[in-house]
């Protein structure tokens, strides 16, 4: 019997037939990379599926999956799909209180989790959820004295017994599935309001994955590191669906702290990371270079100057003067090559970033040292597959052309509309939301504002609902300003205000590692974030950044009115635990402006000092108060186009 190509578990069986003894999954455990071949993966999945069947799980039911990227969590996902069930991966770092919403909404009865930490959270959430009955765990550590929960090992043992009695059961169950079945429910991060469950079918994800794999020529020899949250559509496409379609090897890091080491050991050929991660890595490199000896610093600076001048052209295959070519080759030998090696990017064919705007320096840095970093655009509702950048057509400020099979147009409100087979089936139990976001012609309203440039590349400016107007009537795109601010390594987060106001003001969070290092080198003593953020020297440092942004904004006619007149360096870091950021670390603008209302008013009323007390929640769930007298800074603005301050 040839397994179906229409469903994800069907593809798993196909991979077993095509390359059963090739490595499918690696995981670093006890310091050694352990390997599962495709055949072993299928056996593990079969055992879990059969075990779940014995426990009463079946077609149409939901299986919550919570934890870091452990192979057996991916296997559990495939097992649920094999039975016609629907996996619901959840963000593993969310506290129990946030679990409750998703568990309730999806009416979860069965859950597969990684370890004691997740078990504890589920047990805490269980009384409010009501339906949760079965919890299975991967790592038994610390769980010896817990009752009423079952180890995955035990579930698999039960499954293998069942399988011995029903040898054809697994394959028959898979054959019952069809492309139109819902394959997974991914909850949106909830930048706006409550999270919504996005129901995606096998067919939709397969269209996206086949498009993506074809586009970049993914093949069984590729290696991918699976390290992003399993609940995120990016991980689901890049480390799960693409894996099943292309048949490459996924590698699960040892722990969240060892990702950089593991990356280097694996040397992935295909890599996907949000800009934040590329940024952290670059910050680390820069910090270490500043501590390096003078000779190394000189060499690094010289070579990076060459790379900035011609690196990207070399990568794109554009003509480059012979002298520069020689210098670049030398640079590769001395700096870029070793640097790529240290970063674990030596073998990269294609690296992608998405999810937020990437800074120009950051983007250029990676491309100039020979990493083929590209951008794409997509959302949970489109299986992370809408626009892709072609090789040699990579531009910083666009997200490329519509991907194969995607029908994209711009509404009059400049909102981006998308139609195609990779669209969501519906929002789970939310027909109102489904109606609202998919119009009569079948276009999905992304909520992003953008336009096509002269080469037909999509350029995004902001969330459609965030784009507003200043009192003077000029365009105000907060994200655009915030991104420019965040491109400075010293600035971690920024929130711009200005809709309906006479001028733009902003909150800024400094980057603790970068500014901390800067302060150390100047012998500036500080006790913690709050203290450091309120230092006069640090405020001056931030002001320099803000003024540079203002100078840039002044040069662009459309946004020159959006220069930042006054700003505050916030006394605490914006944190998802305090609901200020989403789990994917996007600022919840409305919430922040409400929570810090006094500060916003202080900005606009021209005060210079404002006392605030803010409630913070610690990792263990307790709360405390951070109090500070915050100084409000004024920044220089440029150009005639800017309205008068105040």
């Amino acid at each position, binding site marked *: 019997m040839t397994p179906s190509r229409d469903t994800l578990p069907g593809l798993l069986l196909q991979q077993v037939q095509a390359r059963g003894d090739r490595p499918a999954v690696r995981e670093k455990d*006890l310091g050694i990379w352990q390997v599962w071949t495709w055949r072993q993966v299928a056996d593990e999945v079969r055992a879990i599926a059969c075990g779940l069947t014995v426990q009463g799980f079946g077609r149409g039911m939901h299986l919550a999956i919570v934890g870091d990227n452990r192979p057996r969590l991916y296997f559990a996902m495939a097992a649920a799909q094999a039975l016609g069930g629907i996996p619901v991966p959840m963000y593993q770092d969310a506290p129990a209180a946030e679990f409750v919403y998703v568990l309730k909404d999806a009416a979860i009865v069965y859950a597969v989790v990684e370890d004691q930490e997740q078990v504890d959270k589920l047990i805490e959430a*269980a009384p409010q959820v009501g339906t949760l009955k079965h919890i299975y765990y991967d790592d038994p*550590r*610390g769980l010896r*004295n*817990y*009752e009423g929960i079952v180890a995955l090992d035990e579930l698999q043992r039960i499954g293998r017994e069942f399988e011995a009695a029903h040898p054809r059961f697994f394959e028959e169950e898979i054959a019952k599935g069809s492309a139109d079945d819902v394959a997974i429910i991914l909850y949106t991060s909830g930048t706006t309001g409550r999270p919504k469950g996005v129901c995606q079918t096998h067919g939709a994800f397969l269209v996206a994955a086949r498009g993506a794999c074809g586009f970049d020529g993914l093949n069984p020899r590729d290696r991918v590191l699976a390290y992003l949250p399993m609940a995120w559509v990016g991980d689901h496409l890049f480390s799960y669906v693409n894996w099943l379609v292309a048949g490459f090897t996924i590698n699960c890091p*040892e722990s969240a702290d*060892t990702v950089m080491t593991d990356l280097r050991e694996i040397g992935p050929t295909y890599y996907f990371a949000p800009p934040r991660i590329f940024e952290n890595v670059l910050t680390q490199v820069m910090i270490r270079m500043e501590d390096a000896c003078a000779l190394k610093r000189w060499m690094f600076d010289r070579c990076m100057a060459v790379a900035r001048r011609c690196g990207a052209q070399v990568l794109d295959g554009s003509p480059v003067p012979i002298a520069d070519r020689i210098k670049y080759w030398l640079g590769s030998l001395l700096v870029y090559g070793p640097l790529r090696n240290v970063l674990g990017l030596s073998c990269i064919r294609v690296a992608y970033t998405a999810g937020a705007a990437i800074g120009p320096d950051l983007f250029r840095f990676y491309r100039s040292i020979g990493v083929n970093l590209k951008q794409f655009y997509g959302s949970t509702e489109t299986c992370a597959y809408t626009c892709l950048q072609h090789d040699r057509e990579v531009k910083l400020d666009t997200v490329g052309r519509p991907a194969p099979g995607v029908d994209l147009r711009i509404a009059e409100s400049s909102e981006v509309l998308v139609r195609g087979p990779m669209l969501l089936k519906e929002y789970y139990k939310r027909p109102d939301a489904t109606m609202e976001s998919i119009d009569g012609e079948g276009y999905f309203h992304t909520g992003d504002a953008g336009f096509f440039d002269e080469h037909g590349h999509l350029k995004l400016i902001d969330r459609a609902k965030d784009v507003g107007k200043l009192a003077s009537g000029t365009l105000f795109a907060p994200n655009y300003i915030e991104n420019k601010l965040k491109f400075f390594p010293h600035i971690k987060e920024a929130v711009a205000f200005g809709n309906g106001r006479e001028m733009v003001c902003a909150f800024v969070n400094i980057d603790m590692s970068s500014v901390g290092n800067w302060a150390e080198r100047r012998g500036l003593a500080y006790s913690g974030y709050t203290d450091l953020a309120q230092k006069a020297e640090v405020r001056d440092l931030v002001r320099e950044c803000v003024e540079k942004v203002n100078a840039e904004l002044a040069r662009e006619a459309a946004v020159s009115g959006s220069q930042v007149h006054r700003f505050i360096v916030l006394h605490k870091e914006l944190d998802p635990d305090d609901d200020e950021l989403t789990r994917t670390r996007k600022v919840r603008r409305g919430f922040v402006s409400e929570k810090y209302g006094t500060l916003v008013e202080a900005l606009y009323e021209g005060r210079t000092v404002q006392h605030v007390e803010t409630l913070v929640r610690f990792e263990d769930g307790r709360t405390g108060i951070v109090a500070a007298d915050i100084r409000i800074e004024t920044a220089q603005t440029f150009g005639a186009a800017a309205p008068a301050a105040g």
Partner: protein
Amino acid sequence: MPSSPRDRLPGGEMLRMEGISLAFGGVRALIEVSFDVREHEIRAIIGPNGAGKSSMLNVINGVYCPQQGTITFRGKVRRNMVPHDAAVSGIARTFQNIALFKGMSVLDNIMTGRNLRMKGTVVEQAIHVGRARREELENRRKIEEVIDFLEIQSIRKTPVGRLPYGLQKRVELARALAAEPSLLLLDEPMAGMNVEEKQDMCRFVLDVNEQYGTTIVLIEHDMGVVMDISDRVVVLDYGRKIGDGTPDEIRRSQAVIDAYLGVAH
């Protein structure tokens, strides 16, 4: 759903200290101190500075030899325990002032904890051949389990000297655990740590005790920690034992309160 995480039963007597007196010249560090330690329990030794707590640990693992008294470990009476004997009989310890090899990696430091289990000669170990090679492979697995247990995978290859204090303490615990001790002596495992590091360390101490059944004797100044995690507490003051019992009993003991808070004269 989970039952109480600490329902293990302390077993029979493992270690008995009887009438221990230790003096350095005219300074009497310990004066006729007697107490016992049961299998699988967490036994805390507390007391003000200079009460003789560290001296007591040093007597248990044979660094100091008491002038009077007997030590009975697992039914065998010892007069002169030397540190090597203590290690061979399954006693491991950590130190108040971290005693690690600063220039060596975390992995190598923990590996030294396995030294007793290796039979290869110095020469074999130095050139990494024969028995030494085979033994290192076998022992590496055990060490990796300890690394996994204490969640220090990310610093496996970092030189210890570059680590923050809290992590160095954890590495020291790892080295002690690598010896697979039946009795673990911890000298102020949480000193100098912040709240979060303390919580982590508490969890590790409890996990060691629960998962491996290791008996633990610890010295600690943080009363919150002591009262939370220990089964029984010994209180020393100026070298004498002034209290012995469960945390609740100690909390109510007048002698202990006086020693800690001072008495009005």
